């Protein structure tokens, strides 16, 4: 019997093609694991569909028909991607019973390439959160445990917490995520996985439930860098249904395997040595720098002077865009409605009961910063600082080819911590938000572990649409870390 549990996509594809394992076996194996799991990774299961699709994949493979790059591979789909005929909730009560009648472009691409969707993964409500504790469907538990903290349950990170946790617990082979300020990279880091946020515009946003449209970007969460390349290949496309979808040619992402990092300049931003950056993370950062040195890369110090302003900028722009995007949830066209005889009353009570506390808080901030009298002082100001942050990266990339930083200032923390003060939770994203504001591709790969055996993620940021070099740098970290 093959070890199906720890399989990565590349190996599984090999087994499937050699007919050593069928997609149906693989799918049933993961279904069984999901049914036994108590991590609350999934909001909705789609097992019947998955079994049907797996049988179709097996038929295609056995009759030597043309097959997709993910033919027969069971994955998880973040519950932010609309799936035709399958409930899509965005982790919110307001969409508890919403059944889309169309397919998001990202999920359509994956299905066309033969992927088997096992279910919709849990997430922070409307992707607003960094610990997966804001979901209406309950928090997700990280399968990893600290060997010190008396077996306390840890957060998987967020917002793509269900996706990360399910991959880390071997409940599926890979999963989709979405990243607005760190929602792919941070949970990947907390769960010891690879998380890739591609350049803004690389994956279509059509059918992705919108949070902050100028920042939202889909990407994969996987066990290996190679798997991330395979998933991204399928997820990427030009899409006329998304006006910010890029028409730049899509490379063969697996070509990253031939990309040579020798002589490439790796920039270390001085400003990322932020206050509160855990010393064990600094150590892993230093080890990782040495991996690059040993492999012929040149290490240089760079400056991104506006780094400390990125998080406040983000917490104006993202809530502002959210307040506009979430105006559609009014209890009329779809979703939850609180009954009332008065229209205004119906709107206000529907939104009061349908949204959770964090979402309401951000909608209030967003509404405030866009309101008459405050627009210039907050929103317009933030847009200008965003330009400066983007300019910082542009100048930095004239001196270096890639930027290497930690992904998070701390490792996964126990469920229930950092809940009192919203800002304390926001600080989780201090190292991931700048690349989001600049729309740059960035990957998180585990670089090492702390003394309690918890993973520490390293982030590599690249120039726009240079996912290949970002993947190559990620692979170097994966190869050098020694586990």
């Amino acid at each position, binding site marked *: 019997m093959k070890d199906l549990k720890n399989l990565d996509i590349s190996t599984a594809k090999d087994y499937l093609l050699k007919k050593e394992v069928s997609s149906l076996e693989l799918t049933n194996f993961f279904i069984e694991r999901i049914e036994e799991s108590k991590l609350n990774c999934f909001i909705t299961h789609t097992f019947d569909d998955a079994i049907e699709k797996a049988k179709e994949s097996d038929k295609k493979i056995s009759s030597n028909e043309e097959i997709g790059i993910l033919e027969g591979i069971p994955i998880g789909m973040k519950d932010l991607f609309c799936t035709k005929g399958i409930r899509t909730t965005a982790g919110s009560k307001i969409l508890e019973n919403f059944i889309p009648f169309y397919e998001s472009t990202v999920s359509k691409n994956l299905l066309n390439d033969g992927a088997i969707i096992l279910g919709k993964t849990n997430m922070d409500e409307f992707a607003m959160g960094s610990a997966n504790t804001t979901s209406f469907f309950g928090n997700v538990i990280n399968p990893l445990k600290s060997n010190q903290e008396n077996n306390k349950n840890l957060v998987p990170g967020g917002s793509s917490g269900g996706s990360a946790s399910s991959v880390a617990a071997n409940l599926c082979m890979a999963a989709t995520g979405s990243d607005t300020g760190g929602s792919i990279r941070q949970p990947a880091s907390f769960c010891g996985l690879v998380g890739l946020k591609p350049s803004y515009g690389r994956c279509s946003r059509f059918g992705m439930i919108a949070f902050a449209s100028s920042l939202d970007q889909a990407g994969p969460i996987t066990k290996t860098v190679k798997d991330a390349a395979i998933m991204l290949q399928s997820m990427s496309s030009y899409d006329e249904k998304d006006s910010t979808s890029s028409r730049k040619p899509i490379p063969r992402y697996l070509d990253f395997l031939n990309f040579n990092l020798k002589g490439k300049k790796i920039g270390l931003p001085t400003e990322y040595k932020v206050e509160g950056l855990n010393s064990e993370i600094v150590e892993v950062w230093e080890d990782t720098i040495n991996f690059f040195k040993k492999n012929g890369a040149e290490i240089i110090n760079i400056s991104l002077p506006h780094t400390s302003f990125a998080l406040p900028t983000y917490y104006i722009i993202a809530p502002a865009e959210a307040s506009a995007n979430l105006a559609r949830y009014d209890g009329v066209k779809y979703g939850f409605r609180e009954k009332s005889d008065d229209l205004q009353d119906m709107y206000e009570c529907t939104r009061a009961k349908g949204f959770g506390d964090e979402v309401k*808080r951000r909608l209030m901030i967003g509404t405030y910063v866009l309101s008459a009298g405050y627009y210039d002082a907050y929103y317009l100001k933030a847009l200008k600082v965003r330009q400066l942050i983007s300019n910082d990266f542009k100048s930095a990339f004239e001196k270096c080819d890639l930027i290497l930083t930690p992904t998070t200032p701390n490792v996964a923390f126990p469920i229930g911590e950092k809940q009192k003060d919203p800002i304390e939770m926001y600080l989780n994203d201090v190292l991931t938000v700048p690349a989001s504001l600049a729309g740059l591709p960035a990957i998180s790969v585990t670089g090492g572990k702390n003394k309690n055996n918890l993973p520490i993620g390293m982030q590599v940021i690249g120039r726009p649409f240079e996912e290949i070099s970002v993947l190559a740098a990620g692979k170097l970290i994966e190869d050098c870390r020694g586990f």
Partner: protein
Amino acid sequence: MSIDNKTVRKVSKLAKIRINEQEEIKLIEELNNILGWVDELKKVDTEKIEPMLSVFNESMVMRKDEVYSEISDDLVLKNAPESKSGFFVVPKVVE
């Protein structure tokens, strides 16, 4: 700039989110904290800087304005909390 109960009430009206007195007190504190924190941005000199609306710098193209009906009215109304004879139903707004 500090937020008082009047402002919180006004913003909750604009955001169309009903809040009770307890939530109001909590929101005053939280919003003041968050806005105090983002006030950090005032330190940045942005006088000659243009606002950045998007990182997307490719020209946008119009898609063909074609009528197609891949989705039926029934399907659209299926998710509505209340519908009748092909319409969404809302509480009465005219006397």
